[in-house]
């Protein structure tokens, strides 16, 4: 037995040495650089491609690929995208990012999909000096991780106050009820913003109710809310739970408008809740029916390829790659530091989301569009 153990230990040691050696082999050549004024760069993408949130990853991948084709066709910048899956887990996202940074020597990283993943990947990218752009990370504190961390997804802290302000102005709201999912990062951080904004606007919060992921019966919470008779309901929920909440609320006779966070903003709400979804107000950077040449071109192209209208994740990813391409062009090289500096200078960029700038921290400066569901359709809220 003892001899065997020695052998096994020896074998393990040997295999790990071999493993390390094999690993050291690849990926150290400088594959990117400037050739005759044309900048070419490898860009890594960490995305949620398998698992429960694969739909997000797919949309992001679709948006990025479309942008890549167009940018490469134009010819100023040549971008090579390397996709890595994170499966929505922090440790997977981190190893994926490490691979991109150290083995593939990418110039910049786009992604990861979730804010929780960004909380892990961001500091590492920042330490390694690789610019990283989140296209769907809306939680608070993301660009504040470091100088190399950016995002072009509109944070909740910008979106929710915008939609609340407009709803309050229109419906003359004094009293609100809050409903949120307390076991999800996304909805929890949305709730924090709602609470803060409600306090700042001097609204009276009648009650704060919570629910959990996957819950299907909200009657207890809704009955309480109904009895308190609020002017407006603030609901920080993801679309699948949110749609059911609206459905049950309308059936119970609650007819006040709802203001939702970013996760509530999905055409799926209309599919699930039908006419009960009328009266949902959300702020979004992305409105697919905007009368803008660029937007319509993107929508047509995306629809041709994927068979459905692009959502905000696809649109944000599409714009992110354009912003990065712009920075690469301005930097004139694929050097990580040069690209970071050029990115930080991005100002008044005209993308499909609208006029876009980074603030000094790398956060988003833009005006969101406020939408409302009317007649089972998203229309601009006026």
């Amino acid at each position, binding site marked *: 037995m003892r001899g065997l153990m020695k052998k096994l230990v020896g074998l393990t040691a040997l295999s790990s040495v071999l493993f390390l050696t094999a690993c050291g082999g690849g990926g150290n050549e400088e594959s990117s650089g400037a050739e005759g004024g044309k900048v070419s760069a490898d860009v890594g993408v960490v995305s949620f491609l398998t698992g429960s949130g694969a739909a997000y990853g797919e949309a992001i991948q679709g948006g990025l690929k479309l942008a890549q084709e167009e940018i490469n066709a134009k010819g100023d910048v040549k971008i090579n995208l390397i996709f*890595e899956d994170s499966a929505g887990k922090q440790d997977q996202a981190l190893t994926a990012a490490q691979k991109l940074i150290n083995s593939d020597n990418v110039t910049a990283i786009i992604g990861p999909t979730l804010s929780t993943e960004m909380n892990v990947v961001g500091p590492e990218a920042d330490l390694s000096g690789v610019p990283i752009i989140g296209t769907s990370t809306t939680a608070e504190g993301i660009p504040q991780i470091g100088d190399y961390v950016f995002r072009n997804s509109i944070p909740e802290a910008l979106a929710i106050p915008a939609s609340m302000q407009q709803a309050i102005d229109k419906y003359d709201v004094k009293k609100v009820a809050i409903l949120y999912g307390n076991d999800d990062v996304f909805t929890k951080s949305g709730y924090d913003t709602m609470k803060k904004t409600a306090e700042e606007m001097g609204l009276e919060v009648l009650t704060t109710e919570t629910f959990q992921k996957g819950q299907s019966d909200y009657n207890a919470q809704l009955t309480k809310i109904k009895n308190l008779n609020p002017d407006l309901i603030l609901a920080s929920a993801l679309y699948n739970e949110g749609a059911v909440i609206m459905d049950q609320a309308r059936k119970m006779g609650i007819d006040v408008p709802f203001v939702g966070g970013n996760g509530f903003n999905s055409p799926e709400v209309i599919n699930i809740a039908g006419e009960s979804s009328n009266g949902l107000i959300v702020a979004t950077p992305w409105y697919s029916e905007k009368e803008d040449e660029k937007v319509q071109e993107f929508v047509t192209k995306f629809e041709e390829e994927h068979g459905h209208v692009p959502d905000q994740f696809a649109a944000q990813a599409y714009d992110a790659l354009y912003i990065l391409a712009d920075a690469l062009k301005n930097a004139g090289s694929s050097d990580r530091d040069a690209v970071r500096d050029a990115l930080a200078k991005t100002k008044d960029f005209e993308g499909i989301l609208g006029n876009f700038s980074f603030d000094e921290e790398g956060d988003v400066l833009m005006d969101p569009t406020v939408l409302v569901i009317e007649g089972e359709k998203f229309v601009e809220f006026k």
Partner: protein
Amino acid sequence: MLAELINPYYLQVGCFILINIILGISVYITLSTGQLSLANAGFMGIGAYTSALLTIHFELPIIIGIIIGALVAALCGVLIGIPTLRLQGVYLAIVTLGFGEVIRVIFVNWESVTNGSVGISGIPHIGREILKTLQGFGFQPISIGLQNNQFIFLSIFILLLLITIFVIWFFRRQHQSRVGRAFAAIKLDEKAAESMGINITYYKVLAFAQGALVAGFAGAMYAHILAYISPADFAYHRAVEILIFVVFGGSEVIWGPIFGAFFLTLMPEVLRFISEYRYMIYGLIIIIMMAVRPQGLIDVPLLKALSKKGRKRGQKHGTGNHKSM
């Protein structure tokens, strides 16, 4: 030369493999008394949160945070171990699964301390702290030809490797000691063991506490390597994942969970080149394995066969080996 071999990516994967090995061992320990515990994700969470909060709020050195984290987890292991003594098999599994969920719900709802489901970020990173300390003594990684981040991950990897080797060594020794034999006796037949004078309460709770201690330790390391934790990390799917390491590798000998954790952590990384399909292959491998070897890949007969083969080879090459005959 050295510098080129050290790629943080591979070291990172290596670190996760080592942490998963430690987690696998934690389930193996409780399982060696015949108790199937699914609470290890919860213990891991307790270790992680305790250490993270202590190092952030009280600025304790990481090492003390990790030790306290592991001890608190062990204490919880005792607390859960005593009332569940009478439970066996699936009933124990359900109770421990419930305990894990309770822990997670506490993390979600105790917002003033745990920051709710948003999680805790900015946890001191163990590698960066090591580097900072060494720099304080005037050491620069560049002097041995390494970049800062290479050094950071190398130091974590070596640290974890040493710890893992120690853990394996300790539990192999224990397996061959009085305690290990008591565990095995309890696993085979509780009543018979009791009638032979083995204090079942003591040994069962001991196994539970040891499992919790090791899981809590792994959790604390996890927190200081990722530098960010949230309750979702310690939900039941983590418990099941750890259990799969043990079931896949084999729960009879300690090499089972070690191999299971090594193989199943490495697999998704090796399969990266087929991107979207990698988890399909991963699932397929597990199904085939379970169909072919339901007892796990590594069991006692396999080890015996291996050792016989090894001995034969030893004899062929050995010169003065006749004494052992």
